[in-house]
């Protein structure tokens, strides 16, 4: 993996984790009404 690809992947990883956390909050809010 090139340094550029590694940086891009780690950035996308952080975005995916944050998006998952936000989705979890919203989903839980929907579940509990």
């Amino acid at each position, binding site marked *: 993996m*090139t340094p550029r690809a590694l940086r891009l992947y780690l950035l996308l990883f952080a975005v995916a984790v944050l998006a998952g956390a936000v989705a*979890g909050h919203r989903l*839980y809010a929907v*579940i*509990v009404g």
Partner: protein
Amino acid sequence: MVHPRIPPPDGTPRYGRWIASLVAAGVAAMCITLVFLSMRSVMDVGGSCASGNTPFEIATPCPDGTWVMPVAIPLGVVAAGAFAVLAPAGLGGLVMLAWTGLFLSLGWNFLEYGVDPPGPQDGPVWGWVVCGVLFVAMGAGPLLAVVPLARGARDGIRLRRAGGAEAVARRVAAVRAAAPPAPAAAPGAPDGESPRDVVSRLERLAALHRRGDLTGAEYEDAKRLVLGEDAP
């Protein structure tokens, strides 16, 4: 002219696996968040509850959303496992962050509710505080394992940079050896290659350089090889 197919360099991203692993990471993060919130809802009612068809009288019914926890835990484990399998080579160790995130977030719940319990309870609830300290220790431990992982990735990049010129030279030499001989060599062209061969290889090297697969030094070395000059 048809060139023999050059195998992709080891670092070529496979975007399908990238997307799948990132989706798995997102699902794992979502599950950890659901467990975190579900645990807080149970601790809001004192830390224990019951529901369902039971012959006993239920003192504390479970709040809405409690069922999320036993669903999110196995789903999160599957998502974390999928990430470990699908992540690019050398990055599967990032899955340890799921363990860290889970135990640090649940440890925070124990500490927060242990220091300031809900309802009429006063003072610290030492059982929860002890659990919080244990969970934080369990969650922070694997972070120490992530440090060598990051060092390994950094060293790998340095090694790749150091050996990159040699690898490119090998690939170029392999292509040159495998290419069929040109029918008529133009005057001045090295090794009997036609000018079109040289130009197409230079274009390919330039494309690799633009894409970031070759550093400037690697590109210059490979270009000298293609042009028939002596590489350092």
